[in-house]
């Protein structure tokens, strides 16, 4: 039995040492961040913030839905102060499930255009991205392009590439269409679009651009920053592919191009609300906004911030002013429409 006790003891010992929580000394100024933004697109800024403010930033990156579940199950004991996501729909969902509090400083909220923040002040957008149509320069005349709706026109049969409906950006796009023209019209549109697909939806946004360049399709629907990254990346093949396409801004004559945001909110359990606001303030500073515009080719939410040459080359556009909370509300409806349309 002796050896047995030893095993039991050592197992317990291991369990206990592993469970040692990382105690936050109260003397130290901290802010704890749950981020659905990938580390490479947030950590450099957080490090900079720590350097400037002396506040330690603790970070967990994960998928938005997982972070949300984690916040829900941790409840009021959650160490998190900040939730960052890469789409408005998830922020809306977080608000609905009661894990956020509306304690973002008023001056910060007012910096951001009204449609890019929550109407009850639970969250605000940090950067904007548009979901646009890209077309093959050599095969498509941009005069033939007009709106998202027109993509269902039979003249584009077997000419369009778009990624899977599992993707949140497509779900948000469809949600925005439901919001503007109702479920029935959107369902018809989705069916029409699926008929026009050149191939089964697969890959990411970059893959759609590559497919247009390789001649598999003439049009693709993608997020702007992916194209920006391809144009500025080290990968020769991707640069060449991206050079063969051009950006078209849909719906310029009516509601404007569909946009989404990466955004930020303060959690209900936050014990460092003041620091959380300091961090939001930092992320809304001109320097941070410019960093996003330069490194990730995203559009700043502030006016007058210098953008990258790539973004400049695409010119300015008129964006859909739909309140982005709608995207979260209509997400399930969008998924069902896509399911029924057979949009993989």
């Amino acid at each position, binding site marked *: 039995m002796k*050896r047995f006790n030893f095993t039991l003891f050592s197992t317990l010992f291991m369990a206990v040492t*592993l469970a040692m929580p990382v105690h936050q000394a109260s003397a130290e100024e901290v802010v704890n961040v749950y981020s659905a933004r990938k580390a490479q697109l947030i950590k450099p800024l957080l490090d900079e913030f720590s350097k400037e403010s002396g506040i330690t930033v603790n970070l967990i990156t994960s998928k938005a839905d*997982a972070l949300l579940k984690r916040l829900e199950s941790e409840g009021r004991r959650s160490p998190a102060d900040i939730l960052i996501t890469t789409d408005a729909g998830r922020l809306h969902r977080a608000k609905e499930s009661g894990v956020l509090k509306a304690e973002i400083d008023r001056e910060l909220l007012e910096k951001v255009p009204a449609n890019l923040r929550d109407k009850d002040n639970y969250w605000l957008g940090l950067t904007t991205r548009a979901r646009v149509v890209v077309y093959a320069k050599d095969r498509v005349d941009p005069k033939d392009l007009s709106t998202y709706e027109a993509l269902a026109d039979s003249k584009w049969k077997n000419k369009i590439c778009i990624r899977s409906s599992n993707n949140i950006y497509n779900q948000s796009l469809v949600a925005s269409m439901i919001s503007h023209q109702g479920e029935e019209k959107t369902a018809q549109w989705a069916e029409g679009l699926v008929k026009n697909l050149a191939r089964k939806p697969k890959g990411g946004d970059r893959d759609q651009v*590559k497919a247009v360049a390789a001649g598999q399709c003439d049009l693709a629907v993608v997020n702007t920053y992916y194209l920006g990254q391809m144009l500025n990346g*080290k990968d020769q093949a991707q640069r060449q592919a991206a050079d063969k396409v051009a950006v078209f801004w849909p719906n310029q004559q009516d509601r404007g191009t569909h946009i989404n945001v990466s955004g930020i909110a303060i959690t209900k359990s936050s014990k460092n609300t003041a620091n959380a606001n300091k961090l939001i303030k930092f992320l809304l500073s001109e320097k941070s906004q410019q960093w996003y515009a330069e490194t990730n080719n995203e559009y700043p939410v502030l006016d007058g911030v210098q953008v990258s040459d790539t973004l400049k080359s695409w010119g300015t556009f008129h964006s859909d002013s739909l309140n982005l909370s709608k995207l979260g509300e209509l997400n399930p409806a969008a998924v069902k429409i896509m399911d029924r349309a057979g949009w993989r």
Partner: protein
Amino acid sequence: MTKSPRLWLFITILIAFVMTTPIWVLVSFVFESGGNNWQHLMDTLLPDYILNSILLMIGVASGTLLLGVPAAWLISHYRFVGSRWLHWALLLPLAMPAYISSYTYTGLLEFEGPVQSALREIFGNGVSLWFPEIRSVGGAILLFSFVLYPYVYLLSRSAFGGASQHALEVSCTLGAGPYKSFLRIALPMARPAIIAGVTLALMETLADFGAVQHFGVDTFTTGIYRTWSGLGDTSTAVQLSLVLLAFVGVLILVERWSRKQQRYFGGYAKGDAVERVVLSGRRGMAAFAVCFLPILFGFLVPSGQLLYWTVTTAETGWNNEFFELAWNSFSLAFITAVVAVILAVILAYAKRISANKTVSQTVQLAHLGYAVPGTVLAIAILIPLAWLDKTIDDFFYENYQISTGLLLSGTLFALVFAYSVRFLSVSLQSVESGLQRIKPSMDDSARTLGASSWNILGRIHLPLMKTSLLTALILVFVEVLKELPTTLILRPFNFDTLSIRAYEMAADERLADAGLPALLIVLTGLIPVIILSKLMDKSHA
């Protein structure tokens, strides 16, 4: 059987219960209503999920058998060109995460990829019309077979290695050729181990999310994720995963049943050092080819692509941060491997010595953790941990006015616990098939000589099972290195691993940048695999 000590029984049931809590949590969702989403799923995608999952299972079972069993047989009974290093090199694909392998193959074989572009250059544009689509059920079957055959190889190799040389010699003296001896003697004797290997491969296939998602094959896991994140409906998502678990339950029952049909003991007779037959010339080359092919497609091609990406197009290079990532991955994997093997030994042993039905049934349940998709499992673990934290916190607060906060959630303990739940089946399969080859008569003789259960375990079984224990260690270790969804959901602040880094780059569509962390996963996994493989050879001697 003699009566088992009560304490033993109690501990086993306790362990089995704790290790199956997440399953119970999932089951508790059965009666939750998810609105009309079930109806919607049945009308639209559910038939596809079921069909694709079944096709994958059939395909991967055949694929892993075809790749794993012949290689294991050749390696354990013959000598030929390269057989010394093939022996361990056949394990290499273990270190290759399936989802990473899927990135490399789509990169290579897509319409825009180098292979098809080259073909178009050579033959003109017509070729791509009939080039097989890699992102398909067929492609996924091939991918999983090449990544997962090592389970079958490893478990059947240790069974063949221990297969009674006597029986084989006898069959040869009776005039049976090598094929006949293999089919009639060795194969049936190794069957429990082979089936255990296939079962592991299938469970892994069913639980996979990353690769099927990337290949655009709709299976249960992609459906679960879509229901949860797209429809925002947790309860329907969990119910879907219960349907998946029912699948796996059937799988496990089939496995048990096949084990019951025939039982061979005596895999550890004296003098079972295997005399290896030398194959030379053409036969040697053929044997080499059979063993090299799985390594080529399961390991060399994807690693080569990763290396190429890392060197040519990655935007970020090597920096010191990678040491930390590798260390985090390594230490987590090591600790979990030890824990999972200890638990597996306790459970497998308890099952052996106790005539108690409850014990063996609870142990069966412990297998299920492996088949639950990582994301679902992680969420099922969040719930009881949060409850425990709350209970402890309330208790201390009421009695001592101290708030303990989150003691377990968001700590490394939570991670190791989750991994242990997830990979207990892996260690159990290996340990059980090892234990099964020990004749019960041995236990009985030892007992008549007055040895306690504990003595028998420590002095007879464990030494005999060395190979199986090492196998279990390797498998769990490598599994944890590769694991993604659980880590993604449960890890503490500022704690990243190699697989997290690889995923984040890939999710951002920066596949080239995923190359370096992915390569490091492979390298970190490689060294222990080789060391342990060497140790296993020694223990065979």
